[in-house]
């Protein structure tokens, strides 16, 4: 049955948990390498996963990153529970950020996260409900 093989794994991410931030994307990267995804593609997926994970850590209460790998594509589904994004178009602009002073002092919140994800994805969809949360669908072709 061609195309039937799919690998799925979900990772929990907690908001403000800086001690463990980056763990999900590191695990995702390891899995992609074990499967034998070409290094350049792994790097794109790694950057997208890392930025998405950091967005949950920085802005949401909690969330999940789900990795799906099929012979055709890598898919990252990121869902969080948080404040949501009021103006997505604005949020997609390079350098736009709502990050607090505290977050910026830690070296984050430069407004490059979402644009960076879009740059590294072949397909990118973002949906957000203010007061509820945000959902990202990131696809990278193989």
């Amino acid at each position, binding site marked *: 049955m061609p*195309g039937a*093989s799919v*690998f799925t794994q979900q990772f929990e991410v907690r908001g403000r948990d800086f001690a463990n931030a980056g763990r999900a994307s590191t695990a995702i990267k390891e899995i992609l390498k*074990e*499967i*034998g995804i070409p*290094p350049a593609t792994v*790097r794109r997926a790694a950057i997208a996963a890392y930025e998405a994970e950091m967005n949950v850590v920085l802005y949401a209460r909690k969330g999940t990153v789900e990795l799906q790998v*099929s012979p055709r594509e890598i898919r990252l589904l990121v869902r969080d529970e948080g404040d949501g994004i009021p103006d997505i178009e604005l949020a997609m602009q390079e350098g736009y950020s709502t990050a607090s002073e505290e977050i910026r002092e830690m070296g984050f919140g430069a407004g490059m996260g979402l644009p960076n994800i879009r740059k590294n994805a072949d397909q990118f969809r973002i949906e957000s409900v203010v007061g509820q949360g945000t959902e990202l669908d990131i696809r990278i072709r193989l």
Partner: protein
Amino acid sequence: MGDDLHSVRVNPERCRARMACMRACPTEAIRIRRGHAVILEDRCIDCGECVRACPNSAIQPLTGSFTDFARFKYTIALPSPAIYGQFRRDILPGTILRALTRIGFDEACDLTWATESVSVAIDEFLADYRGPLPLISPFCPAVVRLVQARFPALVDQLVPIDSPMEIAAREIKSRKARELGLPMDEIGLIYLTPCPAKILAVEFPPRKRTSFLDGAIPISDLYQPLLAALARETERPGDAEAVKGLGLGWPVLGGQAACLKTEDTLAVGGLRDVARLLEDVENGKLGELQYLECHACPQGCCSGPLTVENPYFARSKILQLVGRYGREPGCSREQIHRLYQQGYFSLPGRFPPQPFPPLDAEISRAIEKRARMKEILETLPRIDCGACGAPTCHSFAEDVVQGRAALEDCVVLTVEQARRHRHTALA
């Protein structure tokens, strides 16, 4: 990893399967099979952590000995500057070099000038470089192999400059051939190495066909004879001036970075910490740094697995030498600039990516195997006890999927099963 040779081997007569090597290996390249440690060749990066860890000295570096070098008319020892940290604080590098000529070498040449020259060459390279940052030091062969295997997307960030030992060997070999009127192949250059990784770098120099070095001997093998020779040696005028320059600091963590003009450097030792940092680089971080000095050994080469002294003692001795003799330049900047322009320091080609083998060459099968691995992993205790002969439950799950181990090898699962049987029998 493509090469059929590695720098260490397990001596089955000494191996008692005590698993210290298996737990110490940073790439999970060791398994216990039928009562002995076995090295998975395609996962070994020759860091030598297993050599250091083994309580029975059962893992031995594949190195030469003096008798192998009898074929040469003239033998020259090129000791890693790490050797200067191996002896009492009052023993000078110049005296150590002379002592080497008392134990069988015709001559011993210092490499400190080469380490400093290479540092200046890195300054030159950084000045013109416009590619992705940070650049990664290419001088620890185990780090280079780690990058090729686990971070193949970063290979082009390894600085394409040849190692001090190779540059010195090339220079010394041609100069000595002229001076002695001997053909180059009758002069044997022997590197005195602090680690197995450098042995391999002599056998398979990165990005080149051949090395100008003819072999390597562990510093630890020469330690006893050298101590004896040093006991008979006294300091002579000129010993203090024999070795100088900031290059003296190369064997300690941070010593390379200290030689550079830029302050945007970071030095990291120990393969696990190196890997953690390279993870960040792979995630697109640390671009504000110019140069990462990476060592497989926690304190740098002075703490290599084939050295003898306590690493902190060795470090302190090297720093003492830097403090005393580091201020005087060991080479001329103008001369290095000219040589750099001529390509004297460059490594040809690029470092090829050499990823660890995937679960399967065919991607859909690899995906299925990874899914099966995840299922198995969820049933395992996740305590990484090692009793199955694999270092972690993760690597055990991989071994099961690849048919290299059976699920029954998991002691915890087997005991649990036996317990359940007993309970049902009693009920």
